[in-house]
């Protein structure tokens, strides 16, 4: 079963608005990562947040992590049409030594110009 589950499954907003996506996971983690996938392309790494961090920023991206609730959120501010993509969270499952990354099912974001 998937470690991460993103919510909502799909999101449609107007250009300039903020977009928030959530990820829930099941087991303890060392870190959580967010990726973007444009249509027909591979995933691109956006940001990594460690389990001892609560918030991290990168440009227009803001990620929060709440390990007590086993959840993370990705906020994209001032969205652009180019942000249209699917967004995935990925976790390591707590570092059992097997080095397997576990991906969620993704949020499809559509930014309307």
């Amino acid at each position, binding site marked *: 079963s*998937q470690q991460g589950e993103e919510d909502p499954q799909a999101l449609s907003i107007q250009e300039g608005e903020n977009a928030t996506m959530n990820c829930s996971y099941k087991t303890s983690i060392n*870190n959580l*990562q967010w990726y973007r996938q444009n249509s027909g*392309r*591979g*995933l691109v790494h956006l940001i990594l947040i*460690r389990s001892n961090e609560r918030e991290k920023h990168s440009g227009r991206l803001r990620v929060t992590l709440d390990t007590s609730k086993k959840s993370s959120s990705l906020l994209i501010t001032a969205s652009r049409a180019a942000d249209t993509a699917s967004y*995935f969270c990925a976790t390591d499952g707590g570092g059992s030594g097997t*080095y*397997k990354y576990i991906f969620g099912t993704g949020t499809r974001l559509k930014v309307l110009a």
Partner: protein
Amino acid sequence: DAGITQSPRHKVTETGTPVTLRCHQTENHRYMYWYRQDPGHGLRLIHYSYGVKDTDKGEVSDGYSVSRSKTEDFLLTLESATSSQTSVYFCAISEFPGQVFNQPQHFGDGTRLSIL
């Protein structure tokens, strides 16, 4: 962009035929991964490799085998393809994740495989 090439990019084949997908990297990364992506399932790990000739199973390894004879190449083989293996297959690489998994994965652009 990380130097990852997947081949072929598209393939259509018939049930029961063998299929081999290739992932080639120029980054000299130790770890390589094969995923499949299906609607409603996200990315699921098939197999991964942590060094030459060192591989391990993922979540959905049944019906798949892998080989890694060189650092730069990771092959995924479907010995006898079935229609349920129709999917988009992605290769990813990463540096040694370490004890705190602080390395991102870099992905190829995928192989779209259709099995009729």
